[in-house]
């Protein structure tokens, strides 16, 4: 890893070096040759089929009325399965439960974790590192192993079959996202900016809300999106709490796949993907920009 001074020197040199070198960069190396290009082409084709293939295959099922085996296309099209899904009461309730419970989970998780994230970034205190690693342990240990042991506690606290129980189970999956990613974001806000604002006469609270919080917002946004998806996708724990009347969309998906025709599950899959896709597209810039990656390095 370079020191700060090295980086500055390199940044200063960079434009010159780049201009002179760019032609050579393209002509040399393994990827420059024809075989390299073919290799890349094959890999891209493989990735398109590997990543998108299953999703498109599933999406087409949602509109297929019947399908004979070796055909790559259904025999005829229908919207019947969409009607089945929209007229099924249990599915509607599951959608409703998911859309109410997941935002609640994100909200509670933010209230619990964001002050801690700020503390991890800005203060040094007793057992700080132990705490950071301890929070990571919830992520390191397999969820299912955790839930099997959690059940005893839930029985004892009468949390089985309750909404509170579901919310607690889902919060456990969001804590790492909600502390680590915002902590990295808070740590990246330059102190000099805050001090300059203080010198200009801004109050502490004003500095926090208009400088620190605003600059850390992309990180918090990524954390919120990841937490929402973690809560929204969480099925095992919710399933284990066994709250039949509080079935959420993913738990419903388990029963659907076992009890309904393939096409109904396909329709439901599309519906279940909508919130994730919308949210991820909204936060895409920051996730690709490194906020997520930055959050997982202990500092």
């Amino acid at each position, binding site marked *: 890893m370079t020191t700060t001074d090295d980086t500055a020197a390199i940044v200063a040199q960079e434009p010159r070096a780049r201009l002179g070198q760019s032609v050579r960069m393209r002509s040399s190396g393994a990827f420059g040759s024809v075989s390299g290009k073919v290799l890349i082409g094959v890999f891209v084709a493989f990735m398109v089929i590997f990543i998108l293939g*299953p999703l498109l295959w599933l999406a087409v099922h949602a509109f297929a009325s019947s399908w004979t085996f070796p055909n790559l296309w259904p025999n005829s099209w229908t919207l019947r399965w969409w009607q089945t899904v929209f007229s099924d009461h249990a599915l509607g309730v599951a959608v409703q439960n998911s859309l109410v419970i997941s935002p609640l989970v994100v909200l509670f998780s933010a209230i619990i974790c964001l002050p801690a994230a700020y503390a991890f970034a800005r203060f040094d205190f007793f057992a700080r590192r132990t705490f950071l690693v301890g*929070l990571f342990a919830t992520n390191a240990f397999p969820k*299912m192993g955790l839930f*099997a042991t959690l*059940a005893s506690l839930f029985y004892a606290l009468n949390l089985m079959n309750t909404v509170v129980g579901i919310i607690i189970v889902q919060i456990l999956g969001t804590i790492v996202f909600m502390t680590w990613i915002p902590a990295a974001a808070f740590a990246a*806000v330059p102190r000099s900016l805050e001090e300059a604002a203080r010198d200009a006469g801004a109050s502490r609270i004003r500095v926090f809300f208009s400088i620190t919080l605003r600059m850390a917002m992309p990180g918090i946004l990524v954390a919120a999106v990841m937490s929402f998806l973690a809560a929204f*996708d969480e*099925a095992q724990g919710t399933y284990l709490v066994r709250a039949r009347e509080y079935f959420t969309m993913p738990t419903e998906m388990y029963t659907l796949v076992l009890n309904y025709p393939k096409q109904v599950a396909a329709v439901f899959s599309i519906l279940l993907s909508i919130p994730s896709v919308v949210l991820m597209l909204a936060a895409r810039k920051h996730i690709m920009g*490194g906020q997520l990656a930055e959050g997982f390095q202990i500092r």
Partner: protein
Amino acid sequence: MVVNAVAPPRAAKESRRHRSGARLSPLGFVMALPPILIVLLFVGVPVVSALAFSLGFTGGLNSIVSMIGLNVHKADAWWGTLAAYQEVFSNPQFLADLGVTVLVTVVSALIVLFMAMGIGLYLRMRGGWLANVLSGLAVIPLFIPVVIASWAILTFYSGDGFVRSVFALVGLQGPTWGYTVVAIVIGSVWTSLPFAVLMIASGLQAIPDAMIETARDAGAGFVRIAVSIMMPMAFVPIVIAATFTAIGVIGSFTVPYFTGPNAPTMLGVTLTSYFTSYNQPQQSIVMAFTIFIAAGAIGAFYVWANFRSAKDQGRV
């Protein structure tokens, strides 16, 4: 789409200096407490009481579970009993599942690392629209809930799925991967790829251009630059990607539950059926601890790599 590393080293360094300036802030400790207490209560307590239950202590928190559960071994010595562990570890079914779990974890992690390194290196060394298409594709699974992904992958590779259809159209007998260990590996790679690509691409992107070009001027080829400069420089992100992938796969339930065979399957599925279907919570918890220990070993590697890099940068 441009993958880029943020958080300049200067800012991180400065904030660290400030942090050590205000040593041992009681306010910081209090602010950090809420998530710690939640984790202690809802993860720490169950884990300790589960450990006691697996050793045959059936009182306290474990009384209800041990009353409901079948085939519970009770402690016969002051330190408990290893009967549940003996029973599980002499069960050939469990040993086969353990083998499958380790195999799927290692193979998936290697494939994910290989693909993420390839995409990351191509993005860093060449750039361009094709590289952006590749990284964009690799991140798509992050958008899709795992339940749906598993089910989509099952139908894609099943007996009447796309792969077999394509083979059949050209008159060949294609492989049926649905409900096999191969499908579990495919599903695990599919779902783990985005995080690994983001992590590794961000690490490689942070390497200064000048270093790569100096090596190239000195006559180093693509492979030499990748092995001698890129990989050591991005060591921590690569370790994080590897350990998170392995930890995610080793404890996974949804992917093997949907795509895998009935037996032998991964331990995440087996321990769930022991808990919910066979009603043998003690045996289920023994299996959970087996995964716990394996994940703990992988997690220790992650913590070691992070602290090593923190030391290198003078942050500790």
